[in-house]
């Protein structure tokens, strides 16, 4: 989009610049903190025709007028009053009605809340290079490190993790500050290598430091021998959690509240295990347990929803010495697992590796279809499926990463398939990065699936 000279002129005028940014900030603040009802009634209602949401609605930067798009009412306002800037009340972006375009390329506008410190910020920051903005780089295989690199690719492309390290939340407080001695520091270094300019040394420095650090903690996870990717994820999650406890000088929460470290904030949910008496419906033996991921049985299942349905379905519990505290019956109770709490990231493990009674390990290779958007609302209620009118909670998660395993139990290879910037999929195979279509991504023989919250209604 071509540059807007009109706003440029305004921002270069010292007399009006601060006021303009202040007005913009206040408007954005109000839009961000209003109830949906207020937003609809006031910011999305056209001052001229009084219709709500007739296309987008724009709030005038210079007066109290708000005008709609569809009936060109703001356009009229802009020509009669010569007020050419409108703030879209849905997306908070500024539109120039002379250029007929949104203004997106002015950093000062995009970060208008930072106006006061702008000079200082310009001095101490670098704009990232265009070719590094998506973090499309692989990790050289240093032995059998694919189980590590595929997990890392998921993490360094996850917005919560990237934000955590970009805002230096670990770095600022860590006393060790050494990527070969602290796992969080090494992950921090990897994020910096991936997205930032590599000052001296190599792109691989961060990765090598992590292997070095992992070796000191647990030889198994240093990449000399193939390990299970899910176990590595759990190992890394544990390290990040412990590092948080160390830098924040916190012990484990004793009041039952949830840990606020980046890992628990992202992944932790809770499962309710309901045990209901089949005679009197007493549910006092119901317990709730936290979880960091869900492991799903895939035998004879062909879709992810089938696996989740099976996980959630109400069953009679046999071989369980039940004694009802209310009616004293010993009849088999019914059991049901339902989701009580969800983190913004939902990790699902498809149980592909089975340990048989005779000591052998076998891999289940059946293809399990998984959706781009996963609605887990129905798994958060008790009882059966959905209510008659199809209503009920809607909790939609978006698929962002797939870790797949190719090969046998003992000799296999892990690959990560990640969704980058809204709509493109990339395959990360050790040091090789290649683009693939959405169709192809959906055909992966998935082992681990990572969904991120998209919308809750």
């Amino acid at each position, binding site marked *: *989009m*071509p540059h807007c000279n009109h706003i440029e002129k305004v921002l270069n005028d010292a007399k009006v610049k601060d006021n303009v940014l202040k007005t913009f900030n206040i408007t954005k603040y109000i839009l961000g903190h209003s109830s*949906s*009802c207020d937003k*609809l*009634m006031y910011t999305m209602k056209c001052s001229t*025709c*009084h*219709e*709500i*949401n007739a296309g987008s609605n724009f709030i005038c930067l210079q007066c109290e007028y708000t005008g709609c798009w569809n009936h060109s009412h703001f356009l009229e306002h802009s020509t009669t009053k010569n007020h050419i800037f409108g703030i879209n009340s849905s997306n908070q972006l500024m*539109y120039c009605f002379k*250029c*007929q*375009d*949104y203004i997106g390329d002015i950093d000062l506008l995009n970060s208008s809340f930072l106006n006061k410190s702008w000079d200082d910020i310009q001095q101490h920051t670098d704009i990232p290079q265009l070719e590094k903005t998506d973090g499309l780089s692989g990790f050289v295989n240093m032995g059998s490190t694919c189980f590590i690199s595929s997990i890392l690719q998921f993490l360094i492309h996850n917005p919560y993790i990237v934000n955590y390290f970009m805002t230096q939340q670990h770095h600022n407080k860590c006393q060790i500050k050494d990527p070969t001695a602290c796992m969080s520091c090494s992950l921090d270094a990897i994020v910096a290598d991936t997205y930032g300019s590599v000052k001296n040394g190599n792109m691989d420095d961060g990765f090598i430091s992590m292997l070095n650090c992992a070796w000191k903690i647990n030889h198994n996870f240093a990449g000399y021998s193939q390990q299970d990717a899910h176990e590595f994820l759990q190992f890394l999650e544990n390290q990040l959690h412990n590092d948080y406890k160390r830098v924040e000088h916190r012990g484990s929460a004793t009041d039952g509240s949830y840990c606020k470290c980046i890992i628990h904030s992202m992944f932790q949910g809770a499962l309710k295990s309901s045990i209901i008496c089949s005679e009197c419906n007493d549910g006092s033996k119901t317990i709730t347990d936290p979880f960091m991921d869900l492991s799903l049985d895939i035998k004879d299942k062909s879709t992810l929803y089938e696996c989740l349905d099976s996980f959630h379905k109400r069953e009679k519990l046999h071989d369980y010495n039940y004694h009802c505290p209310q009616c004293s019956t010993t009849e088999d109770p019914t059991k049901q697992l339902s989701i009580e709490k969800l983190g913004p990231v939902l990790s699902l493990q498809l149980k592909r590796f089975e340990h048989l009674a005779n000591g052998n390990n076998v891999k289940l290779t059946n293809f399990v279809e998984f959706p*781009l*958007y996963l*609605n887990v609302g129905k798994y958060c209620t008790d009882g059966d499926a959905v209510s008659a009118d199809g209503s009920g909670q*809607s909790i*939609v998660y978006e698929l962002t990463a797939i870790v797949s395993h190719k090969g046998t139990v003992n000799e296999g290879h892990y690959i990560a398939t990640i969704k980058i910037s*809204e*709509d493109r999929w990339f395959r990360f195979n050790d040091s090789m990065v290649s683009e693939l279509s*959405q169709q192809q991504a959906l055909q992966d023989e998935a082992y681990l699936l990572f969904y991120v919250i*998209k*919308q809750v*209604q």
Partner: protein
Amino acid sequence: MESSMKAQIQQYLVESGNYEKISAKLNDKLLEDGWMDQVRRLTMNEIESDKSANFASILAKIEPQALDLVDQKTKDEVMAQIRAFLDEVVETE
């Protein structure tokens, strides 16, 4: 439909909380139908083909196609919801 009548009906829809409900349901459907991804792809293609185009011109090209691409089933469901609400509030002669 007369603009002021439409505005009145919308007012009632918002005040009763139904506007939000219907809008949220529609949003859900469009997401799960894959419509949002489709329209995004169309838009990206349009932008790629003419780097100097502005928002207004791109919208003019995309909007009719996007409206057309909405699943008929989704359109029908949302219309039914709106109709049901109107039957309750609007007096017909």
